[in-house]
């Protein structure tokens, strides 16, 4: 018998997301992902100075703002026909790298780990660790309290097959606590060259406005060493331990397996990126053709018009539905159901994110360290590169990326030149257009800009990682990547659909980003 499972809101992601599935004999037969928030930032940017895009588009997402700053700066640099100087590029890498490490740690510990790890295991803890005894004490006291929700925000939770390995549970809970000051320190690393974090100010077309000093370089290096210890000795082993216990999750949430990524972390000249972009469709790795990217709004909450599919900058933003139209569609099971548009690549719904970044780089064989590390983990876990597009593969990809990234940052910080400008000013280009492509923590991010005769923005387009991943159906009714990942999943207990939550969270959705 067909049943419906609705999860609304999905917590521990960015923003407002609803997941609706139909299950038949406990197996998901259809799925809908609804992005439930809209601000209309792209069209609002019209008339603002071209440099404002950097500051405003960061506010599209408070979890990975650095990526929008970089994409906006790169789009404007493309329009100017320039690249940052050596120091500028290195500082950009250092700002983005630290931020991405913070983002991946947040995603694992705060957003996902407690879907696998049993936080109640701490009650059986008998050791002397201060943090753990603190949590144990707190749980014991809370259990006796008369509050309406004792143990909030850690309970209530789904009844599920949480990890039973005491050692793994304890390690992850300990590191959950430690990750909070660690993330705060990583944000300090961003602020050293970025001014503040979240929402760094210093990334501008032409470089970074901060001039590095011997002291700021030393400070960054000190924090980087701490971060290295956390990533290598805590974060990575925790993910590997969870991956070994939940090995079946290398077979869950696989989706289409079509992958798209841009390149990221170039050398100081802006070439030879650490991660190389491209596409992988049906196991075949190919170069990216930007002209094949378009957005479709058939199932998105915008009025139907004469151009339902459009490449960036080729049309005005479509008009949102009013309340009456929205209600009509909302009640119709065949109607529009999301604020997110549906980007497609040559018709394919593409998964973007850490798996795409890693697999494309691996298949391109452009980075020896990446391939060596992937092979090492494959041997240890008994998996192959085909297993990466999966729930556990996504977590593992982030860990591998973090490890590779640490080496890159260690190298880049040593090449920064103290007391040398990292910013060169250029005039705002008039009647120009540009594109900025980078890898955000969550995947491929593109900004497209057009300026008018006075250097103000005349059109702005963003295609954001979660727009790809969480996209609704397109005109041919093909499900979006996350929807596809859910279809075919066996849900043991419809009242506690932890399997679905694990799949959705593995893609690290950011709804504020996806709709903007």
């Amino acid at each position, binding site marked *: 018998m067909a049943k419906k499972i609705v*999860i*609304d*809101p*999905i917590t*521990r992601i*960015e*923003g*407002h997301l609803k997941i609706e599935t139909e299950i038949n004999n406990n197996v998901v037969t259809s799925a809908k992902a609804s992005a*439930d*928030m*809209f*601000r*209309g*930032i792209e069209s*609002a940017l019209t*008339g*603002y*100075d071209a440099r*404002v895009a950097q*500051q*405003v588009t960061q*506010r*599209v*997402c*408070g979890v990975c703002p650095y990526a929008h700053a970089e994409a906006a700066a790169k789009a404007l640099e493309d329009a100017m026909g320039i690249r940052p100087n050596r120091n500028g590029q290195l500082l950009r890498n250092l700002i983005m790298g630290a931020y991405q490490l913070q983002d991946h740690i*947040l995603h694992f510990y*705060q957003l996902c780990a407690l879907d696998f790890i049993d936080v109640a295991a701490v009650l059986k803890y008998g050791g002397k660790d*201060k943090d753990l005894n*603190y949590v144990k004490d*707190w749980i014991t006291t809370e259990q006796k*309290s008369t509050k309406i929700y004792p143990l*909030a*925000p*850690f*309970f*209530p*939770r789904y009844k599920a097959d949480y990890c039973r390995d005491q050692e793994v549970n304890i390690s992850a809970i300990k590191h959950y606590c430690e990750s*909070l*000051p660690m993330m*705060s320190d990583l*944000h300090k690393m961003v*602020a050293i*060259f970025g*001014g*503040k974090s*979240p*929402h760094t*100010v*210093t990334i501008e077309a032409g470089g970074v*406005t*901060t001039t590095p000093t011997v002291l700021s370089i030393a400070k960054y290096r000190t924090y980087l060493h701490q971060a290295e210890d956390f990533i290598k000795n805590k974060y990575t082993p925790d993910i590997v331990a969870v991956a070994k216990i939940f090995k079946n999750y290398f077979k869950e949430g696989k989706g289409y397996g079509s992958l798209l990524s841009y390149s990221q972390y170039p050398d100081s000249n802006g070439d030879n990126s650490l991660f190389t972009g491209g596409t992988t469709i049906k196991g075949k790795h190919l170069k990216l053709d930007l002209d094949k990217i378009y957005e479709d709004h058939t199932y998105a909450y915008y009025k139907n018009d004469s151009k339902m599919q459009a490449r960036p900058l080729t049309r005005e933003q479509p008009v*949102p539905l009013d*309340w009456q139209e929205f209600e009509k569609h*909302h009640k119709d099971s065949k109607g529009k159901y999301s604020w997110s548009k549906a980007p497609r690549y040559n018709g394919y719904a593409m998964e973007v994110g850490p798996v795409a970044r890693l697999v494309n780089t691996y298949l391109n064989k452009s980075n020896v360290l990446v391939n060596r590390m992937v092979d090492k983990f494959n041997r240890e876990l008994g998996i192959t590169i085909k297993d990466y597009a999966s729930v556990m593969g996504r977590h593992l990809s982030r860990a591998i990326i973090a490890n590779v990234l640490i080496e890159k940052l260690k190298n880049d910080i040593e090449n920064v030149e103290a007391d040398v400008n990292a*910013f060169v*000013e250029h005039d705002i280009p008039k009647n120009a257009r540009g594109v900025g492509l980078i890898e955000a923590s969550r995947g491929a991010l593109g900004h497209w800009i057009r300026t008018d005769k006075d*250097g*103000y923005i005349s059109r702005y387009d963003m295609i954001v990682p979660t727009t790809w991943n969480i996209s609704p159906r397109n005109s041919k009714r093909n499900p979006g990547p996350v929807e596809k990942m859910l279809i075919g999943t066996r849900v043991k207990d419809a009242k506690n659909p932890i399997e679905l939550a694990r799949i959705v969270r593995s893609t690290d959705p*950011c709804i*504020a980003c996806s709709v903007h």
Partner: protein
Amino acid sequence: MNQITRREALKRIYLATVAAGTAGFLSFDDVLAAADNKINQPTVVWLQGTSCSGCSCSFLNIEDVPVIELITEFMDLVYHPDLSLATGNDVLNIINNLIRSSRKYIFVFEGAVPVKLPHACLMGGIPIMEWVIRLASKAAVCIAAGTCASFGGVAKMKGTITGNMNLSEFLEYKHVDVPVVNLPNCPLKPEHITYTLLYYIKNRKLPELDQFKRPLYQYSKTVHERCIYYRDFQEDNFAEFIGDEGCFFKLGCQGPVTHNDCMKIGHNKNTNICIRAGHPCIGCADSEFPRKIMFHSFNDKRSLVR
């Protein structure tokens, strides 16, 4: 054994509050009492409207009190969208039960409220404006976390069509009478919310506010008045390009119109300040944020006025 650990931990919290300059509100005995539940921990519920989660991420950077201790010892955080294990229906039940209970609570709101297009922000299939009315009506106080909740910010920037309102504007429009404190900064500064929460725990009321409902303690002066380049300003020594020493006024700096304490407590635990990082203030805590031009080339003749 555990008693000692606990006492030690609390002592650590207390010393941290001394360092944060909030010790005037809490004695060590208060902290001990809070731990024994003699002081009622305030119940806190956190909701996001048209936000970007930046304020929540920034909240996690609190160091004056370790976050984990803040959310366990000092308050009873019944719901936070990025921290709660509860998901789906459990969340709606938590919020509905809280509203139904006789308990007074602190309602923290991040982001703005779309009024013209109510469907531009939904939770549980219901417009967020409905949730805000329900939660704010029964709250003891509301905290507008960040610039969007305080002034509208990016959510309400010129050119948007969703009809976003900031929290106090919206509550007034809906005739909901409840004290609101605005903590503008994009994103929320963790020190601002720590201060407000600790002040409330001790005094059961909000700190003294200015006409824009901002705590005087942080917002009485402009960035400019305390700027490291204030002397340069007085001596007509202006930077003409990024990298120059001197006042950034001619580069479009919003410091003169932005009330905030950045120059007293810099970002990320005083790691840096935008102006010290070589960039003019973009006025992220100001009611006019974002302005049409934020960073002005020296020879750019276009008007700075919005």
